[in-house]
């Protein structure tokens, strides 16, 4: 076991896979010599060579397309998109190509590309360094969508993504790269080194895709969330003093419906939380699924807590960020209703 923050855990996952599987290659803007703007690939080029860890032109569409071609030719490419906000120029290659290739060729051609990309706000990055576009990708058939909430999962999920034969869009909530963040910007940052989930095996291990985790058992209500908001939810539970069960979705698509619905059917109350904007967000899918399966157990309308439906406003980060106060308020609301 070692102590790792999330960046180190991701780095370790790639390091392990580069060493284990000669087919694995890393590519992206600034990922090679420099080691990535968030240092996620630090040292990997030096260790594994510049044919395994490639700097690329600034061209997200080209990166994803080239990765697809490499995957077709037997490699297992891990492409970094520097910020999730910059994945859109590569969107066509993801939707029309990466997600469709296996289907349209009835399995004769496949390309198991993993796309890693830092997402989310809370780092004063303004509207083009803070977005959470996961919902858009969950609506695309043929890819898996993942977001870890801690270093252990980050490494285990990334290894699963790279080892798997399906394309994966792997969102990394950059706000918690260095430590869990409970939504209170006034508090001193707690590093992962002081957190149990900062304990990460150095070698190979996996966390399966497609399985949610109950990160806090509870009886009064269920909070369904993922990424940074898992920690915000924990803070909200403390703040509200309500014994809510917290579920970390981890894999947004395909969704582990059973784990979610078992919890909500048990608690009868549900709050769905994400950083992304509310309207048409992934939370809507969670609500729609849960109400269908747990309708007869629900004691109150399911509440969504999400980013306001505006672009991410640089100066109003903390009024915008769906922090513990808003989650706690929603919790209270579902408790009061009846």
């Amino acid at each position, binding site marked *: 076991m070692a102590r790792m923050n999330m960046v180190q855990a991701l780095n370790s996952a790639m390091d392990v896979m580069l060493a284990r599987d000669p087919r694995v290659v890393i590519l992206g803007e600034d990922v090679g010599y420099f080691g990535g703007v968030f240092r996620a690939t630090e040292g990997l080029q030096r260790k594994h060579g510049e044919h395994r860890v490639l700097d690329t032109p600034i061209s997200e569409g080209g990166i994803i397309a080239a990765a697809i071609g490499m995957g*077709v030719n037997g490699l297992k490419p891990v492409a970094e998109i520097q910020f999730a906000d910059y994945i859109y120029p590569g969107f066509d290659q993801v939707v029309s190509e990466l997600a469709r290739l296996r289907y349209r060729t*009835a399995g004769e051609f496949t390309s198991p590309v993993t796309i890693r990309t830092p997402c989310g706000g809370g780092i004063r990055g303004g509207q083009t360094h803070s977005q959470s576009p996961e919902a858009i990708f969950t609506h695309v058939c043929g890819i898996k969508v993942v977001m870890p909430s801690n270093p252990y999962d980050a490494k285990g999920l990334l290894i699963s993504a790279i080892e798997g034969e399906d394309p994966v869009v792997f969102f990394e909530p950059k706000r918690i790269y260095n430590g869990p963040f409970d939504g209170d910007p006034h508090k001193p940052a707690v590093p992962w080194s002081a957190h149990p989930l900062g304990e990460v095996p150095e070698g190979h291990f996996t966390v399966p895709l497609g399985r949610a985790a109950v990160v806090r058992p509870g009886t009064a209500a269920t909070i369904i969330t993922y990424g940074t908001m898992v920690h915000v939810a924990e803070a909200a539970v403390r703040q509200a003093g309500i014994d809510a069960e917290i579920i970390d979705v981890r894999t947004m698509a395909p969704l582990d419906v059973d784990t979610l619905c078992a919890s909500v059917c048990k608690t009868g109350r549900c709050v769905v939380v994400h950083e992304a904007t509310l309207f048409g967000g992934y939370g809507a899918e969670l609500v729609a699924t849960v109400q269908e399966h747990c309708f007869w157990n629900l004691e109150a309308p399911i509440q969504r807590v999400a980013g306001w439906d505006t672009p991410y406003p640089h100066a109003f980060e903390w009024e915008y960020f769906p922090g513990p106060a808003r989650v706690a308020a929603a919790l209270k609301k579902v408790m009061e209703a009846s």
Partner: protein
Amino acid sequence: MTPRSRLHVPSPPARPGQEPDFSYLSLSAAGAVHRPEFTAPAGDIEDLSKELVRVLGDDHLAVGPWNPHLEPAELQVGLRHMLLTRLFDDRMQKIQRQGRISFYIKSTGEEAVAVAAGMALQPGDMLVPSYRQQGLHVVRGRDLVELMCQCLSNTRDMCKGRQMPIMYHWGSGNIFSISGNLATQYPQAVGWAMAAAIKGEDHIAASWIGEGSSAEADFHHAMTFAAVYQAPVILNLVNNQWAISTFQGFAGGERRTFAQRGPGYGIPGIRVDGNDFLAVHAVTQWAAQRARQGGGATLIEHVTYRVAAHSTSDDPSRYRPKEEWKAWPLGDPVARLKAHLVALGEWSEERHAKLEKELEAHVTACWKKAESFGTLAGGPSLDPLTMFDDVLKEIPEHLVKQREELRALQTAGAIGAAPAHARQD
């Protein structure tokens, strides 16, 4: 100076009812263009992007440094492939007109672009076509029955009914899947080639794109990545003068050739007579050897003409002179190779007629066989429940449930058999 509008709107030389006019084309004489070493730096051979590599002269003989000196037997194979491609196209178009398949795209007049290039490459090379290079499948010996079954979406459809007609692929034949989205294959081919180079393998990739599609982002992505990593790839740009209704000026072809894009990226650009089998073969061989020897990518502009409609959904008489193709100065690739072989004494009208008959019979036999695997009107058909396969490697739970839902509806008779042919609006 009075301000005035200066927006330039490209306009083709001729519209319906007008005389065809190809005077905008700059042509070189057969044999006139030099053939550099494989190793020539891109910057030293920029002229190749402005000239037009041609081998077959008006006398139907092969001349000049680009003459690939192919054996007559090989030329006969090329002729056979091109002819078969054309006859296959003609038949499939007829079949579409009869409503027996829903859609088709012909490559008439452009057969050399696929056939000659395909023949100049090696079996381990990955071919990454657009929708108009069916000749590649012919070159690599694909059973036409398989192509027909794809167009029929029948029980032998390689796509299991998931794609429109002509969206073929061939894993074991190293021919990549055709995408409905233009140009996406181009940078993928570069990625494939990069992987070959990373693995230290000796294969190259070759991709094809239409001149209209070169306006898409993926053209730029492909060129940039190919240039930066000197990827072993041949990027073919098929300038058949027309996109759907817009002529090549709308892709930026008015003031320079498409091959000239190459030098702009530091990649050799070669402009070739796309209807000259020998010339296409020669430039492909040159580019392939360059790539295999570590020289990186080449952009090849094939100057040709789309004789047929864009697809069976199109009516070109709305936007260009009806018989424009007759005025096309570079002739017909099949007729020209035939004439060359005749001039060499290696072919004759009789042999040609015989071959044509043989190939037509072959196509007929293939169609018969293909139909036995199911048609739109009847016969065996694919199980619709297979539509839930291959979305992911393993079928996820929610799709299992959806499949069961559909199965139940089918069992209940709520969702019946599909009609022979859906209404096309």
